[in-house]
């Protein structure tokens, strides 16, 4: 894993600097999802983003969910894809489906 891919280290640096940070991780994919399981996106309450969980299609929705998790402390398991019918649905242009786990760095 190169520095440019080492999102965990970036998140740890933010946390050590006193920021509130959440970590989103792709845990399962179906079809043509651009990022494999294990891909990470770090989000800070101050609005910083590092890494990715898709080709850019769902990062905004994940960041919104991350802010909820930062506020509540409760982790979330998010489902994205063409069959998703949640209010905040953002379909993946590629037609893939994936699950993203969001947790707070305590």
């Amino acid at each position, binding site marked *: 894993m190169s520095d440019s891919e080492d999102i965990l280290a970036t998140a740890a640096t933010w946390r050590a600097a006193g920021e509130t940070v959440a970590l989103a991780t792709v845990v399962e994919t179906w079809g043509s999802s651009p990022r494999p399981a294990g891909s990470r996106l770090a989000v800070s309450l101050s609005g910083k983003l590092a890494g990715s969980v898709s080709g850019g299609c769902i990062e905004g929705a994940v960041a919104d969910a991350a802010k909820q998790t930062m506020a509540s402390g409760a982790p979330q398991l998010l489902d994205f894809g063409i069959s998703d019918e949640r209010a905040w649905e953002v379909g993946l242009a590629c037609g893939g489906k994936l699950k993203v786990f969001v947790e707070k*760095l305590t």
Partner: protein
Amino acid sequence: MTPEVLAALEAAKAAKRPVALLTRLTDGAQHLFPGAGLPAPLAEAAAKALREDAAANVTADGAPWFIHPHNPPLRLIVVGAVHIAQALVPMAQEVGFAVTVVDPRRAWATAERFPGITLIHEWSDDAVAALAPDSRTAVVTLTHDPKLDDPGLDVALKSECFYIGALGSRRTHAKRVARLAEMGHAEASIGRIHAPVGLNIEAVTAPEIALSILAEVVAARRGAALARRAAPATAVAA
């Protein structure tokens, strides 16, 4: 994720120790493997994920768990601190390789030419043997000087490294094949060497050649068809 888990993951990375992070997706509870108190099915899934370097989802006690392997970086050993190496090394680092450059010629293998890179000023057989290439290691020789390249290739061919590439024309390689055969390497073993090194993208400049080499290393790592050569090297004039 607790500070303890985060610190343990960072410590394992610093020590280049493989570690798997196990997360229960219902409530975010986490364990590390290796670690105490893991139920056998989770420990087995974690060991498999590390071995295969692939994340996995398993169910244990009725709950879904995500198994996330964190392996040390792939390694690239570059024999020859030459101009192409100067282009290849930073590209390979960006792609995620831990890079070591081997060249007994101290005028070439300098910190000025390779800032921040581990340099070994020894003959390539001793250096490559000490680095102990494994199945997560690629070895590329770039000097096209037999006395500098061949000893390293000899050691690499006896290892499990996933990629061996050697710079040099077809004619250069045909001579190399003959020398390695004299050293006792079987034809099939010598056939592991990618030569002329790199994917054929008609590369001309040093960075272009570095790109073609790195692309071939990645192709080999990912099992892409591009990494498979159609025929073993023969004595074709370059």
